[in-house]
């Protein structure tokens, strides 16, 4: 297929900058901070899949178009890709939001060494994303790794403290958003529709992977990969049209 491959990581691009048009960085937050500078000097477009918190935050279902104006696009985190679109809907449909919290649980086997080492960056970057897209000032993110066998699917729950909640308009907005995400992540499904319970709004989604290259329990990897691919595809279309 004449696709260039190398085991040299970033060095392959330094040695031969024409190696590729666009770089997906799936290393780690600490490594990306180093790579970002090199790729900027080489004037490369980079889609960062680590929680490095360097590039422009991209949630494909919400702000894909504006992201194409940036050279470093950050895909936030897997939990962010699952929860931020819904937090955005909460922000768009509710007036007085005091607090938003998102909890993601992923299968242990789907969390590699970088995720584990960068668990603090995962939390900080996810929280920043929720704040940015929902406009809610007080947010919290939590991550659990569950080792159960057979492996569990990724599950994300969003809680919100909202004064005078409007559940009807929220349900409508959430359903539309879920359908939009399903276009690029078919295994994204609503398992607790917006519910008012114990003085809080609860929404829960499950993310099952396609099971093509990665096992189906790795929905966390699929959702961020699929989101990154949509960005690259739009970028490619844009380049082709110029």
């Amino acid at each position, binding site marked *: 297929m004449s696709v260039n491959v190398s085991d040299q990581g970033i060095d392959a691009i330094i040695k031969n900058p024409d190696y590729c048009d666009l770089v997906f960085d799936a290393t780690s937050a600490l490594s990306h901070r180093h790579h970002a500078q090199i790729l900027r000097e080489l004037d490369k477009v980079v889609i960062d899949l680590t929680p490095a918190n360097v590039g422009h935050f991209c949630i494909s279902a919400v702000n894909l178009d504006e992201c194409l104006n940036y050279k470093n696009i950050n895909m936030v985190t897997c939990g962010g890709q699952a929860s931020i679109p819904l937090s955005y809907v909460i922000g768009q449909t509710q007036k007085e939001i005091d*607090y938003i*919290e998102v*909890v993601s*649980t992923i299968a*242990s086997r789907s969390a590699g*060494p970088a995720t*584990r*080492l960068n*668990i*603090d960056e995962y*939390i*900080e970057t996810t929280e920043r994303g929720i704040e940015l897209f929902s406009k809610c000032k007080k947010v*919290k993110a*939590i*991550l*659990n*790794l*569950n*080792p*159960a066998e057979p492996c*569990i699917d990724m*599950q994300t*729950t969003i*809680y919100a*403290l909202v004064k005078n909640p409007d559940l009807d308009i929220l349900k409508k907005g959430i359903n539309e958003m879920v359908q939009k995400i399903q276009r690029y992540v078919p295994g994204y499904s609503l*398992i*607790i529709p917006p*519910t008012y*319970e*114990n003085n*809080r709004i*609860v929404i*829960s989604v499950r993310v099952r992977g396609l099971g093509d290259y990665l096992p189906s329990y790795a929905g966390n990897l699929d959702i961020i990969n699929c989101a990154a691919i949509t960005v690259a595809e739009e970028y490619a279309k844009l380049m082709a049209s110029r």
Partner: protein
Amino acid sequence: MGKIIINDVTLRDGSHAISHRLTKEHIASYAKAADSAGIHIVDVGHGNGIGASSLQVGLSLLSDYEMLEVARNNLINSKLGVHVIPGFATIKKDLSRAFEIGVDVVRVASHCTEADTTERHISYAREKGKEVYGVLMMSHMASKEVLLEEALKMQSYGAEGIIIMDSAGAYLSNDVKDRISFLVSTLKIPIGFHSHNNLGMAIANSITALESGAKILDGSARGFGAGAGNAQLEVLVAVLEKMRYETNIDLYKVLDAAEIAEEEIIEAIPTIKSISIVSGLSGVFSGFAKHVMRVANEYKVDPRNVFFELGKRKVIAGQEDIIVEVALQLSNKQNREAE
């Protein structure tokens, strides 16, 4: 017989039992009493540790900062400890602030198979000169070989001891003996044990752990803790005294501290309620009890069925959101069957 370290979790695990509503007065008076009894380490904070105040587990009445500050001001000889779970707490937001207040002991915890999430938190706390332990929670969900592998990781990150938690109160004596003696024979650092009383085994299991070579034991006044509660601290101290273990804890004063906890803090003395027996049998985190009761009542389903379903799904501490999903599922099933 070597010296035994007692870690008092009254003001931390006890938080679960009162939905994390500890007040400054509670903390001040109990910390003072524990200090004067000669308790070695006093754990303080939200039930799941610093940075865990959340809708998922429960919101704390006070901030971590407020709780730790009051405790710090009332502890002279006892060390001030915190529980830290990476995934809830971060170094920047939570751990570094706890250090500003003057925490002495840091117990960095993970689910029993996920020790590699603790690397940076353990190293950071060691770099800051703290006494640092690695904690493996819900340890009944892993074999002794896996526990050893995870404990070795924590040891390599710099943990100065490993605490094995029976978070669901699921162990019988042989389970404790088997695991603790295996870890003690292989690890260079001391081993601790943290029990829960779901099956009435908390004190007995603590003693088994000791006889298997553990050097650190957790307990709480009147057993004040999640679900059926913990090893009852004042009983533990009395039993240790009778067995001639060295703790240097003043028995009368630890009995007094327990009275203070009962009169001023504890709303209901932990007993082994029917639901806690089911929690222990199903191997589900003791801290889920209050949430399961509330949600089961709301969705009109049997809380025991909720626990067994949670056990089947192998949920871990921190997955409280699954309770609502399971209750919703059971309620839908019930409605379908009724039609």
